[in-house]
């Protein structure tokens, strides 16, 4: 199995391919993204777009782990990020607690929330769409609470995050590297899962939960664990972003701003693939920026482009590229075979 195949299918690499090759895609992706600030030539605007991009990709990795990995359609990534971000911002701002305490506290809260939702869904054996709608309602509830509890959250106008001002986080470039570091952790973590026994459990569950259970996999525990990992990552990303930006509002984390974009990015990049969220996130962000001059018509063109992309590569860009690559190299090697499941 080649490196690229492995990145594409998410299949664990065989041992002999070693640590270095296993994590090479992660390292490459992070290095490329790390080049943005030097190349941006001091443009604050570009760095802030890139920061948002990296945060989006991190959300994407979280969604990819839980949905691509175990098939739980967790439509509350934005809400979980909001829970962590607001917890940390409010505890630090109102009570003056240090970030070193409030950041982990917020992440822990988000993790608990996500795991609880997953546990509920597993207990009640909810089907994909049902999980999606329950978590969607959860995220709308969070959104409405943020809007409604004005005296605490500032409602629609949002909240200036005092904590963290004056620290390195507020320097645009350093802030960018902070969120990038988190993304690196997320990608490496996803890779580690793919390479571990847990990765096999994920694949088995996605393929046939019943067969997985018969093979001795604790389906319920694995699913809740996946949701917890994803929620922690999403919470950390949201919280970090709040402190880098110095400002949060319900819109920052709204379903339409976060979850819809995450789904689009991950679906376009390739669900379940390691680099899918990166590719998808970059494309979605670029599309947004390129279409900006169109003004009001932007959304329509954006939709039309997505429509074409989805219909052209329904399984996602990374697998599509991977398959053409595999086919080309196979022909070159004199074997005109397509990979299993390629049809």
């Amino acid at each position, binding site marked *: 199995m080649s490196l690229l195949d492995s990145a594409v299918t998410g299949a664990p690499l065989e041992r002999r391919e070693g640590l270095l090759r296993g994590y090479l895609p992660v390292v490459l992706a992070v290095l490329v993204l790390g080049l943005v600030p030097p190349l941006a030539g001091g443009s604050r605007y570009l760095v802030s777009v890139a920061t948002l991009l990296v945060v989006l990709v991190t959300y994407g990795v979280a969604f990819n782990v839980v949905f691509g990995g175990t098939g739980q359609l967790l439509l509350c990534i934005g809400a979980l990020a909001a829970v962590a971000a607001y917890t940390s911002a409010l505890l630090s701002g109102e009570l003056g607690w240090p970030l070193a305490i409030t950041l982990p506290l917020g992440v822990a809260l988000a993790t608990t929330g996500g795991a609880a939702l997953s546990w509920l869904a597993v207990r009640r054996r909810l089907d994909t769409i049902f999980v999606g709608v*329950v978590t969607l*309602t959860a995220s709308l509830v969070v959104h409405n609470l943020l809007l409604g509890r004005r005296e605490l959250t500032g409602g629609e106008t949002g909240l200036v995050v005092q904590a963290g001002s004056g620290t390195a986080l507020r320097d645009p470039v350093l802030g960018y590297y902070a969120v990038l570091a988190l993304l690196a952790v997320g990608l490496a973590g996803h890779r580690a899962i793919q390479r571990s026994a847990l990765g096999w459990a994920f694949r088995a569950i996605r393929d046939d939960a019943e067969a997985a259970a018969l093979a001795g996999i604790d389906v319920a525990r694995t699913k809740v664990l996946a949701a917890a990992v994803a929620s922690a990552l999403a919470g950390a990303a949201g919280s970090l972003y709040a402190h880098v930006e110095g400002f949060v509002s319900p819109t920052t984390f709204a379903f339409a701003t976060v979850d819809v974009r995450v789904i689009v990015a991950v679906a376009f990049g390739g669900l379940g693939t390691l680099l899918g969220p990166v590719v998808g996130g970059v494309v979605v962000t670029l599309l947004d920026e390129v279409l900006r001059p169109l003004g009001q018509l932007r959304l329509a063109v954006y939709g039309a482009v997505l429509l074409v992309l989805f219909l052209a590569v329904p399984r996602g860009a990374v697998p599509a590229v991977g398959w053409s690559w595999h086919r080309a190299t196979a022909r070159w090697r004199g074997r005109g075979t397509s990979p299993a499941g390629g049809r």
Partner: protein
Amino acid sequence: MAIVLDGSVLGLQLAVLGVGISLVFGLSGVLDLAYGAKVVAAAIVGSLVLAGGGPVLLGVAVTVGLAVVLSLGIDRTVLAPVYRRHGEARVVLSLLVTLAVAFVIDGVLVSRWPHAAFSLAVAGPPVDVLGVRMRGGSLLAAGLGLVALAATFLLLHTTRAGRAIRCVIQDEEGAQLCGIEPARVRTVVVVLSGALAGVVAVAQGLASSVAVADGFDLTILAVVVAVVGGLGRVAGAAVAGVVLGLVHALATATVGASATWVVLLLAAAVTIVLRPEGILGLGGRAPRRHTARWSRRIAGPDRTTDDDAADRAGEGRG
């Protein structure tokens, strides 16, 4: 009493929304995230007719007609590749494609007519109903919703076409073996669902108004109602809509407008978690997907088929 009446007015509209989206999902596994956008598009074009001095009935006819044409058009073009896939792949691709369609429709509406709104003012003084004074428009809207729901049920349960629809929902291949043409049934259902979207637009216009930005919320409401009703179960969606409408009115009266949505959504989430097979439970006779193709979660009431038994033993499919 006022709560019950207000709740029913909203509830009937929610019911129509839920039934419209649920029918199509039940038949083909396509969850139409462009449903709200279609409602809004139909309403805005209707408002243009009215603004141009067209008679009210023409506006209504254009609204419903456009909703039908849009539904059919989308189904025939961009959804065609979706129908070539099966199982969960179809469900997921349909979500993405209809989401993109919703972006396109919303985008066009926002850029062309950012401030348009559709409302059908009904003249005349408020009417007394059971001691409560109701606006004429609200009453008309409720009546319209009721008629649309009743017509849908009559179609499904008394006509041959309705029987064919219920059959295809239960077992597409079995229906083919009986000489039923699934493609034709799909056309009927898509037209019906489009007409219901038109009805929602008109009823909303009567009760209050439809603005350009409402599409997203309408879609979310439709999905929530349909899922609370047990996705694909028409009777369930209708009941769920009315119940949620009543919850909304009750919440407005007791906890105030700001917390209303929270109460409504929590009620929906709790219902789904407690009764994933739908608000009516498994006893109803409403059509639902029973084969193993996508809603493998749904199991039969008494004797189970092998697939169902397997699913119950497992944790449900991801």
